């Protein structure tokens, strides 16, 4: 990914640090620690904090495809990991505040699956899919793709980090889902590749990170949440619950998204990504709820609260993201950081 533009002191120092060699960055690292602690203590709301979410996103990116100019030895640098953990701790605490789990269900696979379906069916936030289906303008479709691109161009990757942390039934289920996400051996059928094709069909740049500078904090937070869950083994229940919630809230919205793109005259090259998800996720949601999440809880009942937390957290943060986008659109504006970047 190309280096994004900094959004404040923390992200500027993170970007400057990883652009330097480990040997030459010691002074910057010491300052970064202090600046990060101050920013975390002073932020009004870390979920909407552009500087901290971008800094966290860049620190996580070192574990994915990397950042241009950043040496690979930064990935496991202890000082940088400490900075990441400082932001992560505040981020996780904020998300836990946002979520109320209520009474826990039983620890059988069926009880877990039923509770996940109840939780995801209850989601009462604003509906982006109905708006996209009926009302979104062409520019709004492009904005919609900008928000989605951060995850969809690396679709499935954060949850893949969980594979070696699971065993037996839950592992087999996760791999079965991921194999589908990754195209069952056909690169052109990878969901990330189908999404890239949709972007190209709308005349957009499908390079990973191409629109990062216009992507707002809450969209980065939605992605950072998956990385937080995926990269910390202690949160393996949460990443499993998160994936289950994503699968369970996908089929019908994707049918509506497809309709919105068809309404503007776009053909199969643009809509196949969405159409594929209608059928795929109707399968995945059953496997995810019963075998992956339910199977994990049956194997280790202590993970039940984490599984439900992961699901509820994903829904809660994405509801905030949807609200941000819909509020901007309803007031006639753009949901992106600088709308002129989309005009090209």
């Amino acid at each position, binding site marked *: 990914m190309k280096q994004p533009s900094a959004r404040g002191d923390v992200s500027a120092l993170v970007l400057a640090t990883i652009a330097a060699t480990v040997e030459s960055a010691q002074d910057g690292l010491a300052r970064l620690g202090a600046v990060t602690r101050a920013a975390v203590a002073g932020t009004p709301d870390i979920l909407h904090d552009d500087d901290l979410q971008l800094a966290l996103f860049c620190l996580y990116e070192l574990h994915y495809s990397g950042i241009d100019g950043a040496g690979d030895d930064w990935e496991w640098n202890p000082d940088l990991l400490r900075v990441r953990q400082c932001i992560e701790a505040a981020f996780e605490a904020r998300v836990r505040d946002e979520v109320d789990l209520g009474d826990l269900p039983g620890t059988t696979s*069926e009880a877990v*699956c*039923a509770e996940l*379906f109840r939780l995801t*069916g209850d989601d009462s936030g604003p509906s982006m899919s109905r708006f996209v289906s009926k009302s979104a303008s062409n520019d709004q479709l492009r904005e919609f793709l900008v928000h989605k691109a951060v995850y969809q161009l690396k679709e499935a990757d954060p949850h893949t980090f969980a594979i070696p942390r699971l065993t*037996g039934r839950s592992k087999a289920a996760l791999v*079965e889902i991921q194999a*589908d996400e990754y195209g*069952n051996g056909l690169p052109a*059928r990878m969901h990330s590749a189908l999404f890239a094709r949709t972007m190209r069909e709308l005349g957009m740049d499908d390079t990973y990170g191409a629109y990062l500078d216009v992507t707002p904090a809450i969209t980065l937070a939605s992605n950072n949440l998956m990385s937080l869950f995926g990269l910390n083994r202690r949160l393996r229940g949460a990443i499993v619950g998160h994936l289950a919630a994503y699968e369970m809230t*996908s*089929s*019908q919205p994707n*049918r509506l998204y497809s309709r919105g793109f068809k309404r503007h005259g776009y053909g199969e090259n643009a809509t196949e990504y969405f159409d*594929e998800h*209608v*059928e*795929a*996720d*109707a*399968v995945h*949601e*059953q*496997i995810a709820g*019963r075998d992956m999440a339910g199977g994990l809880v049956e194997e280790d009942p202590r993970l039940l609260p984490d599984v439900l937390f992961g699901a509820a957290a994903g829904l809660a943060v994405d509801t905030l993201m949807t609200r941000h986008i819909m509020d901007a659109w309803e007031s006639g504006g753009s949901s992106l950081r600088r709308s002129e970047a989309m005009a090209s």
Partner: protein
Amino acid sequence: MSAEAVPGPDGPSGAEGPERSLNSGAASPVSVVACPDGPLLIRGDFELVGADGQELPRTRRTVALCRCGASVLKPYCDGSHKLTGFRSEP
């Protein structure tokens, strides 16, 4: 690594029943999960054919078949059962 649940190179043992007729891959038993208030989830080596015996278009190994009647992708499930409030138990 556990190999207990994995069929050997010659397919499932005779104790699991007669060998099935398969169109591809190594033999693995077919399972149908009747998902509560949802579709029938079918895993394993099976053929999905229309009334004329011709194979139906299929892009994945494991499929979910509609049993609420509301899917627009029949015979596959599209999640519509959640909108119609389909109940599998009487």
